[in-house]
Each structure stands twice: as structure tokens, then as C-alpha cells.
């Protein structure tokens, strides 16, 4: 166990986050606010629970016929004049986009917030290829200017103060801006308005894709999703293939609970349903529409232990309630997707060994499962990941040794008693008034910050003789 908490990269990052006073304050305020908003929204919504059950069922049912739905989706998109690309890996998805940029002479692309494009690290690739990617979601715009990664699935710049944003804008855009969110928003609006109007390509993700109609659905609040899909001449949507849903009727079930789960809104400011490129007679809209369906590790989980994680709507509710996320924030996780679902998604995309430390970044409290709109049993899958990591001997040998000893004590009462006697003896130098305050070695991890009760003079089992009645 020492390996998991002494100097290992994740543990070190977590410790760093704990020492960041502003981050601690920001995280506390933001997560508490989101929790309250979500709670109020569902309290006011008696159908909520039934809708969550429905949403979960729709996701499962869709997976059971996934190939058919994807075919229907693709056929419809093509019928409407769009193009569908099939990317088995993130690398392929990136290459498809780069090739499109080359072929179509794209110099600048405006992006609406998309975790799928973060997942494949698209921006770096675009810049490298001489295409300027411009993030237009305010939070993403901020972190792009700051050369950082998002720290929360739906509020990417939650870790930045308004002072930091003002300094950032002043430095990167030239000028001196007040640390006032209204002012800063206006600045971003003006900067980005020009970009929307000049960009050659708009890149988005997709919250859902409706197979029956060939519709890609974007759920946003700022309006950038609409700009990006209407103004540039090419629209590219990148989507994990698990986001497909069968029908418009199904879509309504998800719309009813998604914004509530994410921000406590009944609906986000804009829900945009896009069917392919502009139609004849339309004054505006892209000439070309491309949907990139991406696998990148998802298919492997259809019959895998992480299948349920494929239901995820990327609402961020689990992050907000997670006691670990609330203390360390998103960057400490070190991967594209943070928080409880992030650990599972990382295992899905990069393999179980990539989360050998993160799989333990959870007290298994279950708050995530409680708030998940599609009731994903995250704690169960974390425990199964841990099982996988142990059976494959990925956990450190010192840990396996300790747990081997624990097992022995649990299987044999004589060993259990022996363990208690040994502990009673060993603790004598450290015990004061029934408490242990400073223990050496591994036990110091507890006593550094907490007292430990001393092992009792007589265990309950040893006292039973006097307690029992004939």
C-alpha cells in the first residue's frame, strides 16, 4: 500500500491540489452550488425518478441493438447530404479531421465544447498542422488561452478566479480588463464573434444522435453551439458511438433530465437539432456536414465490465458530489475525464493499468450513483476494476502481502486473536489514555492526522464469557 500513497504521481498531484488555497475555495463553492441546484431541480420534479429509470433502460436497449441504430443513423445522415466517417481509434478520428482541413483549405476552426475532441487531443494536432483551433465556450476559451486542460466536465475553468481571467485576457488579447465577469464575458463575446464569422470550419461534439432522423443534438447555454453549426461552411461533429439513441421520443426523456442533472436548469438555453448540411433554400448553414463516429476503446466494453459506463451523458453530476473530486479538482486526476465516471472512462479508453492508482481514489461512498441520471453503478465498477488490478498482479506486492495477512486473520479466529494480542503488546509504548497518537511505519499514515483507538484490553469475544447468560 505504500506505493499508492507515497510519492506516486496521482497521490502527489492530489496533495498539491489540497494545498492550493484558491482551488479549495473555488471547488467548495462551485460543487456546493451545483449540488444545491440539482437537488432543488429534482425536488420540484416528481417524474424525475421514473424518467431516470427510463433513460437507463433506453441506453441499455440501444446497446442491445447498437449496430442497427448506427446503421440507421448513418443512412439518414447520408440521405440528407451529410457524410459519415468511421474511426476505430482516436488517432484515426484526428487524421480524418486533419485530412478534411487539408482538402478543404481550412485555416481556422471554431470549436464548441466537446469532451470527445479533448479525448483525442485534437487542438494540438490542428495547431501542429497549421490550422488555428479556437475554443468558443467561455470556459474552454479561458483555458485555451491559459494553455491548460479543463478541470470539470461542464465548467472547465472552475479553478480560475475572475482576477486570473482578467489578467489572462489582458495579457493574451492586449488591453486592461476589470476582474468583472460581465466585462470579461463582453470581451470574449466580441473577440469570438469575429472568429465565428470568419472561420472555415465548425467542430462540435454531440450530446446525442437520433438514429431515426439522422439528427445530431447539441445541448449548450452560450449560443456558441449554434454559431459553430450555422456560420462556417463546414461542420464536423465528433461523437463517441455510444451516444446514438433511437428516436425523437427517446430524446425527450434525456432532455428532461440532462440539464437538471448538470446545472439544475429545466432545459439549457439552447438545444440544437442538426440534420446534415443546409437544405436548398436555406440562407445560412454549412455546405458540408461530417459526422465522425468514434470507437476509441468503447466497443471493447460492450461485453466488458465497464459496459454501464457507456450510458454516461457527461452531465458532471457525479463530480459535484464526489468527496474526492470536491477536495482535489479535475487536474489532479491527470486524464481527460476526471471524477468518478472519469476513472471508468479512462480505464475504458486507455486500459485498466492506466488507473491502477485512480481506481482507489474513492471512498466508495456511493454519492455518485445516487445522482447519476442514468443510475450508473460507479462504485461497483470501481471495485471490479480493483479486482482486475489485483488478479492481474498490477497492485504492488507489498500491498498484496498485507492483504494476504488480513485474509489469514479473517479465515482463522486463532490468528485473529493472535493479531489482537500482538497489537496489544506492540502498542504499549504508544498508548495514552486508550489512544494511539503517533505510530511508526505504515500506521503513521493514520496517526499523522488522526488518533487511533488502542486495541482493547479485552476484545468483545474475550468479554463474552462474562456477558453470556446460561
Amino acid at each position, binding site marked *: *500500500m505504500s506505493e*499508492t*500513497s507515497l510519492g506516486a504521481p496521482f*497521490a502527489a498531484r*492530489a*496533495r498539491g491540489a*489540497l494545498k492550493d488555497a484558491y482551488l479549495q475555495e473555488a471547488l467548495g463553492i462551485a460543487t456546493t452550488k451545483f449540488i444545491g441546484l440539482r437537488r432543488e431541480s429534482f425536488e420540484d420534479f416528481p417524474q424525475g425518478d421514473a424518467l431516470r429509470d427510463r433513460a437507463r433502460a433506453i441506453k441499455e436497449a440501444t446497446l442491445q441493438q447498437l449496430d442497427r441504430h448506427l446503421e440507421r443513423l448513418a443512412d439518414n445522415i447520408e440521405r440528407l447530404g451529410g457524410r459519415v466517417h468511421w474511426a476505430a481509434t482516436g488517432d484515426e478520428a484526428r487524421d480524418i479531421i486533419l485530412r478534411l482541413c487539408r482538402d478543404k483549405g481550412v485555416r481556422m476552426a471554431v470549436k464548441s465544447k466537446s469532451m470527445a475532441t479533448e479525448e483525442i487531443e485534437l487542438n494540438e494536432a490542428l495547431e501542429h498542422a497549421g490550422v488555428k483551433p479556437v475554443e468558443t465556450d467561455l470556459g474552454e476559451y479561458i483555458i485555451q488561452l491559459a494553455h491548460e486542460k479543463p478541470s470539470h466536465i461542464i465548467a472547465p475553468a472552475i479553478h480560475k478566479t475572475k482576477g486570473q481571467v482578467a489578467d489572462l485576457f489582458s495579457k493574451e488579447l492586449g488591453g486592461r480588463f476589470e476582474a468583472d465577469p460581465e466585462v470579461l464575458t463582453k470581451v470574449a463575446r466580441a473577440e469570438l464573434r469575429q472568429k465565428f464569422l470568419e472561420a472555415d470550419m465548425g467542430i462540435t461534439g454531440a450530446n446525442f444522435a437520433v438514429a431515426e432522423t439522422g439528427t445530431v443534438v447539441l445541448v449548450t447555454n452560450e449560443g456558441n453551439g449554434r454559431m459553430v453549426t450555422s456560420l462556417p461552411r463546414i461542420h464536423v461533429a465528433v461523437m463517441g458511438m455510444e451516444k446514438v439513441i433511437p428516436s425523437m421520443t427517446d430524446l425527450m426523456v434525456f432532455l428532461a433530465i440532462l440539464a437538471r442533472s448538470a446545472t439544475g436548469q429545466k432545459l439549457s438555453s439552447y438545444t440544437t437539432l442538426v440534420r446534415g448540411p443546409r437544405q436548398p433554400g436555406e440562407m445560412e448553414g454549412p455546405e458540408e456536414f461530417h459526422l465522425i463516429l468514434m470507437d476509441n476503446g468503447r466497443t471493447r466494453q460492450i461485453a466488458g465490465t465497464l459496459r454501464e459506463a457507456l450510458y454516461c451523458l457527461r452531465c458532471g453530476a457525479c463530480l459535484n458530489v464526489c*468527496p*474526492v473530486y470536491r*477536495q*482535489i479538482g479535475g487536474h489532479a486526476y491527470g486524464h481527460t475525464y476526471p471524477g468518478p465516471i472519469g476513472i471508468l472512462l479512462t480505464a475504458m479508453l486507455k486500459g485498466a493499468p492506466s488507473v491502477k492508482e485512480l*481506481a*482507489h*481514489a*474513492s*471512498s*466508495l*461512498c*456511493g*454519492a455518485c*450513483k*445516487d445522482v447519476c441520471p442514468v443510475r450508473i453503478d460507479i462504485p461497483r465498477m470501481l*471495485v471490479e*476494476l*480493483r*479486482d*482486475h*488490478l*489485483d*488478479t492481474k498482479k498490477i*497492485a504492488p506486492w507489498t*500491498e498484496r502481502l498485507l*492483504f494476504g495477512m*488480513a*485474509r489469514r*486473520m*479473517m*479465515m482463522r*479466529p486463532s490468528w*485473529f486473536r493472535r493479531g*489482537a494480542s500482538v*497489537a496489544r503488546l506492540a502498542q504499549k509504548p504508544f498508548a495514552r489514555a486508550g489512544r494511539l*497518537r503517533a505510530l511508526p511505519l*505504515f500506521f503513521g*499514515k*493514520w496517526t*499523522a*492526522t*488522526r*488518533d*487511533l*483507538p488502542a486495541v*482493547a484490553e*479485552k*476484545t*468483545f*469475544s474475550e*468479554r*463474552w464469557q462474562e*456477558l453470556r447468560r446460561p
Partner: protein
Amino acid sequence: MITCLGDMFFPEVGVAMVRLLRRLGVDVEFPPGQTCCGMPLFNSGYHADARAVAARTVKLFADAGHVVVPSGSCAWMVKAEYPGLLADDPALHAEARALAARTYELSQFLVEVLKVSGVGSTFSGTLTYHDSCHLLRGLGESRAPRTLLRSLEHGELVELPGSDECCGFGGSFSVRLPEVSTAILDKKLASVEATGADCLVACDAGCLMQMGGGLSRRGSRVRALHLAQVLAPEGPP
């Protein structure tokens, strides 16, 4: 079922529980040879080992009537996880399911089986209650403990803001990521102290170890007690 932490660190909780149950006319037995329910093994992913412990425990309690546990997480382990762990052996699986059906966390046993909403005990001072994760979310129980605490004469129950938030114990999590565990604990204890309560009550030994250990380290006057200790603080067992 005494639980491993109860046996080694909090025998007084077990004694209080026996006292309490006998006062309510219950015949208490203690099958010898108890060690642990195996949850630490299970949660850390040693499932084959956890399975072996589950099989042993099921046999140990084969003849018990109602099995009462002073710990939400251990009761949860038996009720929610044992059947699945033993699914490969039809006979053991059936026994596990039977055991699950007759296993109760203490407050649930009192309120649902014995149908008592008060035990006629006195307590002077204010109390505040922490909802342990496995009792709250695993077993869906938040009312029984509060019902029992409210029945105390002279005692006043103050709601703990964020009572449903984890205390940071999480078993081995508390030593794998001790700084994070402590940060979570500090937040919890700040809420506890802000209530002004004299006593913090919980139904789980792990939570009590964590929260009690934190309170004692900071020299707080708040005492961390198990529900059983509050309901049956003294007298012959």
C-alpha cells in the same frame, strides 16, 4: 455480529448493544469464531479471498435467528454482496440469501423488527447524527436512527448539515490517500463543531474511528459515540 473493528477497538459498543437488546427482552447469542465480514478484502478487489471469508461467515451464522450488526457497512456487505460472491455454489448461495434476509443493522432491527421507536433512555445534551454511506445509500436507512435519537429524554437532536456526505473513511482509502481522507474529514468535523452539539452519533465503527480520531486529535469536546452507547450507556449487561 460484532464486526472486526467492534471486536478489537470498540468492545464497549458490543456490550452496550447486548445491554440494550436484553433490556428490550431479546435473547442474545454470540456465535464464537467471528472475525470479519470480509469487506476490506472485497473493496480492495481481493474477491477470491472475500469469497472465502463470506463462505466461512455464512456457515458461522447458519443457526442464528436474527443477526444484528452494530455497523451499516458490515450489514450491507452481508445483505448486498454475499449472495453475489457465492453465486457459483448453489447451496452456499441459498444460505447467503437466507442469511441476508435475516441480517439487520442495529437501528433497523430496533425500529423494524422490534418495532420500538424509543427505548426510554435519557441523555443530557445535544446530539447530532452522521449518515454513514452504506447505511444511508446501501441499506436506504436514514430514519430509524433519528427516530431512536429523538426519543431520548432530555436529549436534543440537531441536524448535521451535510450529514449525508462521506466522512472520508472508506476503509483502506483512509490510509491509501491519507491527506485526501483527512481533508474530507476536516470538512465533516467543521460541520459537526458548527452545530454546537455535545455528541456526534453514528452507526458504523469505521466512521466512528475516523471522526472520533479526528475529534480527539483536535482536542474537541465533542464525543463520538455509537448509537448503542447513547441508547444504553450504563447498567448491567
